[in-house]
């Protein structure tokens, strides 16, 4: 089988099967477990198939391009070490699947469970056979993710949710740190390829960035392997179904951390920094984990802390500067997987059969489930390091290393043997507690369920694992020896030290230490009997130091309270500060650039001051400042002043030879004023109260700040304008347009030719803006709901209605019709006049000031005038306006004119003009631009009316609603 097929099958199959399992129906327990089991066995088969090549020292490798430009390829790489892990993953995986089939309730929707388990298997495989470190980080995070899903499988339980959340938060954070560390490592080495990195050990250790890389990567490994101070997530992960714990928390997930440390050992280990970080963390974890484990009342909790402790042991071994320690570490990885997995399974059986895992409630199970008890005892003995079991062997190696390792500082060296013995004694104590507490003593009578032996196949995986513990313990060299050698060789290459896997090394110091630890452990357990039976939760001395509590406090503070406070400080949801910032930063941006480079007035001699325009701008400035002053309490005045300022702008345009601008400005001015007046009716009355004058200190400073900003903006604009105006304007475009407006654009009004031809695309976009706005206002006004105090009919009208009601024989609107009699007549007469003027502006636009826009505005004004004087109903009875139709037709006409050029093989918006000869009329200019302008015209008429009429209709609605409201109010009284 080619390497690539083998490796791909190994990694892809679990994911594919995971999707398959996820799609199974809820009740398909057998199908799902069969699928999962088959995948694990196939994987195991693949591992088996790879053995011949691996045993020859070949590294299986398959590489696929992924992001080659960034040095990221999908590399699958299996050496002896990876092979060993693959064996653990698939082999123990198969056993766990079998166990889970019986453990999980038939009511449980297990296909989901197996889907997660399979995906996890794939991710874990990915971690161990990644040949690219980025890819390793990729799968690393996936293991966190799927372990999260597995831990939270029973998400209806709060403990499961919390445990899952904590596990993911910590391991994924570690994963991100690992990712960063790998990036730094890649920067040092110049490649993320594992082989390249492993080959560059010396360069890495000497690089300035070694320490950051080391810290980041170690952080990732320690979090994953539940090392102090990140250990606390693991006990909470016990909320997962027991098969999950048996798989993830003994053999796979938590081993990923130590796997990584071992993997990178040749590249990164061997420095003081390494020993201090990795070794110290392992040492502390080993002790704390073992100590706490003694005081756990939950069987799984005990096993969890024991796992922490054993992983601490492995980490400590990896942290030492010794090849032999590495051998011991790898050996213990295997051993721990076997005994811990079987113990988890045993704990699960107890839980399954009795309904509880509380050591204090359990008792005398030896009677009801003797076979399980034997199995558990053997496994626990292996955990305690009893001779002739696998745990003893690696423990002996550890003791030997503790005595001989070279530590960076002698103090560490001195405490190592003592620490090793202490931890070992603790592990004896908690192993005793596990066995003694659950299986011995009088038979418990108040258990939730009546205990009996589990189903045969549920016990089978435990039997296999316990058997392994015994066989390895008795015949280490013959059984595990070759595999261990393979793994060690693939990590250390040529530097493998001599080590012996014999059961008996003669009477030596390590053996003495073992005996002492054993005796001390038994004594400790006996001493603690009373305390352990009491209801006191947690270990003495450090019971307050609960990692979870601290973690949650910190998380709530940092990620919620602090974040909210910071968001309030650094951000705002109010408009005024946002605008202040925007204006302020714009001023700053301009000022900084100006200050950096400096700009002064240009060299153009200033044109002589026209006293008339000067005076006009005195008026304009007064209007502008007046509007700013009065806008709060005298809205109408402000509006009128804006009108005045607009008029000044309009005159300025005239002054500087821009009649088109003047016309447009004027029409826009009028329509805007009418619009704002229409809106004024719906705003609250705002009158200046006597008390409102004196501004408080706070608001005074705020006003001063705003005044400064406004002054800054004004001065800035003035400076910018003056500097621009006094520079010779570049005239390339101007020349071009002036020269070609008539000859190539067919019009004498250059501005209009630019608008409808040279830059007609701008105009096309512009009318779509108008259309979009009109549609939006229409849509918004359809849902308009006036404020409570604006709903009522204005008092003017109510007063008049009351007066009219007193007059017999006069209908309510009578008076109004009277006052409006003359204006009514005159404005109706003006209607056709305005239309004719509009046509005039439209048709001559290309050659003379005018054009579609101003013409459209005039028509809209003409119509709105009728609305104003005649009233909505009257006008709409007579003029059937379909503003939306005008809008649509206008847009299509304008766009269609642009499109028509395609028919002639020209680009969009290419114009066409010619002078046609017509009888009687004579020469007639025919320009496609005119049709375009007519489109603009139609759109402007439609859009303006759509907005104005929609706004006007609100009054009609209010009038209709008012009597209704009056009626209901009367009914309420």
């Amino acid at each position, binding site marked *: 089988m080619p390497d690539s097929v083998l490796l791909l099958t190994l990694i892809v199959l679990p994911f594919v099967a995971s999707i398959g399992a996820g799609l199974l129906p809820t009740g398909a327990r057998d199908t799902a477990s069969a699928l999962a089991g088959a995948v694990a066995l196939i994987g195991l088969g693949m591992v088996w198939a790879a053995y011949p090549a691996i045993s020859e020292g070949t590294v299986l490798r398959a590489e696929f391009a992924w992001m080659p430009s960034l040095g990221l390829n999908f590399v699958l790489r299996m050496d002896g070490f990876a092979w060993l892990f693959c064996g653990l993953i698939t082999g123990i995986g198969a056993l766990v699947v079998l166990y889970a089939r019986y453990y999980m309730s038939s009511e449980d929707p297990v296909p989901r469970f197996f889907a997660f388990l399979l995906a996890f298997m794939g991710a874990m495989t990915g971690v161990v056979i990644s040949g690219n470190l980025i890819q390793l980080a990729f799968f690393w995070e996936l293991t966190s993710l799927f372990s999260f899903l597995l831990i939270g499988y029973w998400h209806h339980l709060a403990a499961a949710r919390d445990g899952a959340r904590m596990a993911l938060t910590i391991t994924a954070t570690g994963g991100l740190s690992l990712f960063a560390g790998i990036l730094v490592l890649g920067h040092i080495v110049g490649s993320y390829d594992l082989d390249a990195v492993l080959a560059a050990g010396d360069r890495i250790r000497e690089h300035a960035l070694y320490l950051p890389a080391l810290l980041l990567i170690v952080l990732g490994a320690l979090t994953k392997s539940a090392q102090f101070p990140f250990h606390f997530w693991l006990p909470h992960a016990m909320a997962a179904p027991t098969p999950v714990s048996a798989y993830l928390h003994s053999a796979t997930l938590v081993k990923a951390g130590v796997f990584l440390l071992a993997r990178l050992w040749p590249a990164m280990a061997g420095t003081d920094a390494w020993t201090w970080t990795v070794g110290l963390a392992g040492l502390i974890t080993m002790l704390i984990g073992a100590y706490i484990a003694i005081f756990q009342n939950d069987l799984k909790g005990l096993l969890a802390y024991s796992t922490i402790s054993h992983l601490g042991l492995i980490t400590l071994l990896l942290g030492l500067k010794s090849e032999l320690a590495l051998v011991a570490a790898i050996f213990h990885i295997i051993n721990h997987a076997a005994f811990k997995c079987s113990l988890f399974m045993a704990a699960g059986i107890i839980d399954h059969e009795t309904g509880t895992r509380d050591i204090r409630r359990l008792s005398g199970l030896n009677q009801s489930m003797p076979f399980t008890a034997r199995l558990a005892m053997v496994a626990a003995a292996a955990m305690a390091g009893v001779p002739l079991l696998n745990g003893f062997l690696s423990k002996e190696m550890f003791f030997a290393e503790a005595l001989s390792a070279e530590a960076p500082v002698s103090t560490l060296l001195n405490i190592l043997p003592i620490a090793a013995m202490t931890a070992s004694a603790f592990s004896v104590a908690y192993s005793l507690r596990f066995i003694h507490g659950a299986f011995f003593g009088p038979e418990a009578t108040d258990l939730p369920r009546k205990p009996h032996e589990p189903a045969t196949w549920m016990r089978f995986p435990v039997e296999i694992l316990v058997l392994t513990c015994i066989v390895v313990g008795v015949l280490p060299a013959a059984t595990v020896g070759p595999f261990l050698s393979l793994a060690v060789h693939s990590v250390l290459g040529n530097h493998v030290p001599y080590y012996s896997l014999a059961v008996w090394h003669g009477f030596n110091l390590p053996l003495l230490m073992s005996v002492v630890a054993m005796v001390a452990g038994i004594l400790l357990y006996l001493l603690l009997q009373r305390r352990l039976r009491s209801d006191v939760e947690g270990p003495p001395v450090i019971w307050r130091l609960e990692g979870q509590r601290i973690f949650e406090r910190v998380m709530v503070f940092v990620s919620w309270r602090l974040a909210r406070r910071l968001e309030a400080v650094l951000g705002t949801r109010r408009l005024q500060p946002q605008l202040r910032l925007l204006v302020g930063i714009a001023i700053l941006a301009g000022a900084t650039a100006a200050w950096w480079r400096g700009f002064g007035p240009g060299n153009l001699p200033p044109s002589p001051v026209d006293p008339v325009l000067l005076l006009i701008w005195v008026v304009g400035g007064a209007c502008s400042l007046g509007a700013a002053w009065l806008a709060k309490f005298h809205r109408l005045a402000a509006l009128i002043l804006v009108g005045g300022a607009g008029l000044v702008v309009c005159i300025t345009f005239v002054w500087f030879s821009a009649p088109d601008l003047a016309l447009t400005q004027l029409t826009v001015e009028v329509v805007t004023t009418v619009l704002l007046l229409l809106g004024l009716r719906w705003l609250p009355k705002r009158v200046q109260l006597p008390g409102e004058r004196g501004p408080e200190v706070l608001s005074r400073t705020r006003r001063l700040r705003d005044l400064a900003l406004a002054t800054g903006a004004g001065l800035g604009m003035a400076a910018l304008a003056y500097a621009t105006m006094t520079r010779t304007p570049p005239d390339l475009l101007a020349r071009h347009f002036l020269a070609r407006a008539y000859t190539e654009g067919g019009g004498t009004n250059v501005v209009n030719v630019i608008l409808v031809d040279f830059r007609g695309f701008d105009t096309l976009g512009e009318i779509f803006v108008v259309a979009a706005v009109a549609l939006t206002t229409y849509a918004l006004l359809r849902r308009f709901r006036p404020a409570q105090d604006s709903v009522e009919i204005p008092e*003017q009208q109510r*007063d*008049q209605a009351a*007066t009219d009601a*007193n*007059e*017999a*024989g006069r209908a309510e609107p009578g008076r109004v019709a009277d*006052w*409006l009699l*003359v*204006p009514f007549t*005159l*404005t109706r*007469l*003006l209607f056709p*006049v305005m239309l004719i003027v509009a046509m005039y502006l439209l048709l001559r636009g290309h050659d003379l000031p005018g054009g579609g826009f101003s013409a459209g505005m005039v028509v809209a004004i003409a119509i709105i005038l009728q609305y104003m*004087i005649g009233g909505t109903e009257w006008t709409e009875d007579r003029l059937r306006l379909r503003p939306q139709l005008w809008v649509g037709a206008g847009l299509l006409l304008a766009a269609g004119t642009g499109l028509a050029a395609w028919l002639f093989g020209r680009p969009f918006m290419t114009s066409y003009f010619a002078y046609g000869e017509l009888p009687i009329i004579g020469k007639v200019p025919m320009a496609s631009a005119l049709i375009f302008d007519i489109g603009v015209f139609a759109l402007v008429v439609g859009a303006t009316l759509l907005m104005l009429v929609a706004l006007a209709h609100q009054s009609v609605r209010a009038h209709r609603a008012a009597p209704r409201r009056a009626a209901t109010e009367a009914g309420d009284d």
Partner: protein
Amino acid sequence: MNQAADLPLWAALPVAALVLLGAGLALVGSIGLLKLRSFYDRIHAPTLGTTLGIGCVLLASMLFFSVLQTRFVLHEILITAFMVVTTPVTLMLLARAALYRDRQEGSAEVPPVPPAAPPVKE
């Protein structure tokens, strides 16, 4: 201003006079806006500008362009016509609005609402 040089003196003098007269009337009207005491007095002031004021200037403009272009320019008539038609609309609405507001405040300056007329029998 270049074209003005081409204007014969006989035309220039009346054009100048008319322009000054018109502008003067408009100014006087606007001064009235400042000087006159009540709103109802002030409402008369701008009509100086809207009638004779603009009329004189338009006449000047007609004269100026007609002589220069040696043909009649009659555009300006339109402005006059528009002014005549539009001014009453504004002023009537405005006067009426002021009347309403003053009555509302019970001002003694304005006449009260006329007594109810006898119902008209059809």
